[in-house]
């Protein structure tokens, strides 16, 4: 039997006149965890559905298990051997059915013999730790649990190929890591081949091989190392005073330059490490450079670099005049929460939340699904009255002045509250009308928004016709139409491509620094959390950590030790022996492992006894590692020692 499972040549799919995928070649081999990576609208879903035989296509050829998929009848021939988990959090499951009933339904649908189905169900429910909840209706599960149940249902008939469409979108980092660990284990144990798509670039290193897709075309293909080589360069991360001046100078030379809290991070396309460092130092001449590190580029940087050559419009030109208001930043309090709490009956959604955000500060609110972030934001924006505690937002007391608060803040939600059938200008005018701006003020703000969001030339385009990135910036503009001093952003970048996300953060950065607007952001992209000046981590309705990203990282490093990456042939199989040897923080990471430990020598020893000779590589810790380490620790505590 041939080793090629999926073979596509010149594959193309069109919806009417709209081209979704074009001229795509793909070759997935037995046993691979193959990734399709790209933002919304890159063509991932179309390709995956076609491979699963549930979508017809117009151009090219597609072979799965050596079977040519050219008709509904031929497609039937492969369906017994594949499992498909379509996009959407638990959308293909049945909400009114319990976990067990869902699994049983899939088993019966697939004609799995009763005894075999029962045995496999127990095994899969045990691996995914869902067994304890087997009688709970699916609609009452958390996002992460839904995804795991979806995986169980996809695997119940022991398929040889599984196709998972964005299984981790909308799931918090802890559940995401859990999901990947389970998937890695199942692939290793059951000899599966998997085709998995994701919009999170930081998940790319988990794949054995992958394709980067953008607007229906393949940008690059290979294993993570091969893709990184396609745009050689280094990441320079530095802390320079004054930051704004440094940004302006660096951005002229290297467009891939972004502010992350007090630090600046930029991509220098230069193969030689010392040379890259020297170039940056030269540009920063005369400024006070407090810290400067040169790091490996991440896949997301490479992705942006590859797109950068094709698309220049992404970065907004930096104004040369710093706003005088920025000097005021860091003085007045924009948001102050004191012991905020919210109960729904017996259920405590938010326990005791306190934090402060100053004008001109970017504040990130992180937490797993259901940690209480949305409830906290609803209380602060005056939508939901708190059960206890107090707070001030934009100078008004939230207990008494809900209406006043609403007029002084801006709010942008994940769903981009735009009217898709209205044009860009009509949307802006509508929001101006809602906030009671007069005609003159409205026209001034209209111009400002078009400038800020780079929407010139799209004035009369319907919002529905805009690409995601532009639509998101239009939504931001609408939230800013009345010049609020405080802006709330609830997962503002989900589904937007990395280029769009970077341009967006560029705008947020300048809003905070130049206009002194206070920003409160929630996000599931941990790479974005690094942009914040200050972070609060929520767990089970409480704020469990409140510090800058740097402080948080430092804290984890002091408590759990340095981060090391372990390379091995069968890394996934090393997880349990390492945990048995006393290493608590071991996580699979693509073809490698991430281990947090203060004692690298012992790690090396243990690895040697396990037959791994290559020494573990020290890595700078990322926000995601911090988040996962913190939340796993808290989960272990709340399960172990009686949470009230």
């Amino acid at each position, binding site marked *: 039997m041939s080793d090629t499972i999926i073979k596509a040549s010149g594959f193309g799919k069109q*919806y009417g006149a709209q081209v979704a995928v074009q001229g795509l070649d793909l070759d997935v081999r037995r046993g691979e965890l193959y990734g399709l990576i790209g933002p919304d609208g890159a063509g991932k879903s179309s390709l995956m*559905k076609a491979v*699963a*035989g*549930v*979508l*017809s*296509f117009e151009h090219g050829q597609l072979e799965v298990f050596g079977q040519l998929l050219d*008709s*509904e009848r031929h*497609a*039937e021939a492969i*369906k*017994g051997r*594949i*499992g*498909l988990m*379509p*996009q*959407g959090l638990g*959308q*293909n*499951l*049945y909400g*009114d*059915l319990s976990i067990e*009933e869902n699994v049983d*339904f*899939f088993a*019966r*649908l*697939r*004609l799995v013999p009763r005894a075999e189905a029962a045995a496999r169900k127990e095994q899969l429910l045990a691996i995914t730790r869902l067994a304890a909840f087997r009688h709970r*209706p699916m609609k009452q599960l958390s996002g992460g649990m839904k995804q795991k149940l979806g995986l169980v*249902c996809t695997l119940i008939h022991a398929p040889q190929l599984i196709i998972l469409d964005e299984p981790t979108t909308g799931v918090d980092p802890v559940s995401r890591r859990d999901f990947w660990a389970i998937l890695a284990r199942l692939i290793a144990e059951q000899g599966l081949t998997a085709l998995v798509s994701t919009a999170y670039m930081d998940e790319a290193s988990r794949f054995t091989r992958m394709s980067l897709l953008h607007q229906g075309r393949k940008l690059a293909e290979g294993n993570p190392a091969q893709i990184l080589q396609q745009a050689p360069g280094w990441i320079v991360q530095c802390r320079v005073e004054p930051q704004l001046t440094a940004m302006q100078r660096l951005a002229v030379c290297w467009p891939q330059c972004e502010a992350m809290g007090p630090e600046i991070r930029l991509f220098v396309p230069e193969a030689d490490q010392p040379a890259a460092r020297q170039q940056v130092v030269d540009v920063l001449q005369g400024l006070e450079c407090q810290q400067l590190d040169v790091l490996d580029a991440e896949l997301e940087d490479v992705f942006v670099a590859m797109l950068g050559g094709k698309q220049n419009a992404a970065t907004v030109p930096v104004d040369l005049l710093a706003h005088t208001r920025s000097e005021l930043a860091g003085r007045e309090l924009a948001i102050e929460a004191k012991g905020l709490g919210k109960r729904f009956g017996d259920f405590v959604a938010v326990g005791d939340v306190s934090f402060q955000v100053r004008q001109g500060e970017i504040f990130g609110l992180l937490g797993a699904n259901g940690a209480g972030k949305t409830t906290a934001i609803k209380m602060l924006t005056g939508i939901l009255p708190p059960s206890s505690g107090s707070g001030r937002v934009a100078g008004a007391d939230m207990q008494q002045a809900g209406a006043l608060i609403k007029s002084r803040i801006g709010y942008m939600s994940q769903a981009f509250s735009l009217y898709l059938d209205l044009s860009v200008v009509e949307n802006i005018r509508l929001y101006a009308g809602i906030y009671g701006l007069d005609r003159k003020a409205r026209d001034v703000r209209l111009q400002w928004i078009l400038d800020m969001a780079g929407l010139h030339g799209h004035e009369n385009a319907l919002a529905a016709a805009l690409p995601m990135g532009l639509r998101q910036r239009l939504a931001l503009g609408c939230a800013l139409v009345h010049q609020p001093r405080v802006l709330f952003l609830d997962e503002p970048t989900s589904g937007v491509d990395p280029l769009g996300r970077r341009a967006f953060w560029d705008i947020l950065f300048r809003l905070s620094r130049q206009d002194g607007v206070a920003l409160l952001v929630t996000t599931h992209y941990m790479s974005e959390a690094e942009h914040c000046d200050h972070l609060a981590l929520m767990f089970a309705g409480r704020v469990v950590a409140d510090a800058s990203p740097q402080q948080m990282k430092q804290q984890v490093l002091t408590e759990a030790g340095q981060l090391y990456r372990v390379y091995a042939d069968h890394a996934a199989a090393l997880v349990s022996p390492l945990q048995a040897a006393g290493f608590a923080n071991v996580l699979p990471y693509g073809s490698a492992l991430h281990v947090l430990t203060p004692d690298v020598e012992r790690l090396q020893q243990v690895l040697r006894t396990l037959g791994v000779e290559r020494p573990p590589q020290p890595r700078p810790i990322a926000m995601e590692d911090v988040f996962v380490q913190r939340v796993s620790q808290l989960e272990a505590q709340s399960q172990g020692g009686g949470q009230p």
Partner: protein
Amino acid sequence: MNLQRVLAIASKEWREIVRDRLFFTLAFVVPALLMLLFGYGLSLDVENIPFAVVDHDRSAASRDYAYRFIDSRYFQFRGYAGDERDAAQLIGSGAVRVVLVIPPQFGKTLAQGRPAAIQTLVDGSFPSRAMTTKGYVAAINAAFSLAAVAQAVSHASGLSQQEALAQLTPIALESRYLYNQSVSSIWSLAPKLIMVILMLSPPFLTALGVVREKENGSIFNIYASNVSRGEFLVGKLAPYVAISSVNILLLWLLAVLLYQVPFKGSLLFFLPATLVYVLCTTGIGLLVSVLVRTQVAAMIVTMVVTMIPAVLYSGLIIPIVSLGSGAHVVAQLMPAMYYTDIVVGCFLKGVGLMSLWRPLAVLAVYACLLFAAGYQLFSKRPNI
């Protein structure tokens, strides 16, 4: 066709319907509710018409004339009005729907043997009701005139009034209404309501049930497995047909027990024939569900393709023979008309297969065509 897969789909579907409160209501409560609402709300009988009298004469004859109306069960007397202006106001406000204006000298003119005129003001805002009202007025008026003539004849000829009346009406009209002796509209309405409700409910449930899976993506579980199209459709639709079968019995019981409609035919014919009709309307739902993608669209399309034929082209309100030629052709193309024949035949006429095999055959062919089209258009590998 693998029975285990069909059963898996059917039992999953059944559980979802029973546990989803909205769906459960839609399946079991709404049909009975419609029967009650339409049954009590859509009565076409015109009785107790409120009326007033403007009496400019105030004689024994004018009172006698007015009493003919006051005594009638079709009219309800609301009092005397002062003049025509008051009368117009009463009609305008909706307090009365008919006003009789008796002119001055009414009694005297009649006594002199000359013809007198009565003016009738009828609220014409609801034409069919106004026509019926006018008919009642004319009939009572004719009876009064006849009595007056009979009196004059008996006076002149010395015959008794009875004999004079018999002489004046040599041909007596004896009407006997077949199938609905008291011409009660609910007798004819209730069976037709069964037709309307079974035209609405099964397609709604079916279309929503299938499109719900398309909308939330669970249809991909079907697409991506070896379940055949036939297995899916049978398993998916079986629960809906079962629900509708329960509803057939429920609606039949409501008609017979609550509305006291006599059921003269045989249940052994009526139930299978109704099942064929339900399969036919379920097929409409299936066809809608393969053509649309969202539940909202499914609802609107189902509404349009079922409601209009069920109300306008079925004989519910307007008899098929009274439709215009174009509408007549349209009615022949819709299944509702054929089932109306069956349901009215079973309830009121007591006829069976012998006289109703033709509409039944049409419905059966209709159902087969709809299922064939649905099966053909349903693809496990669509292009969107």
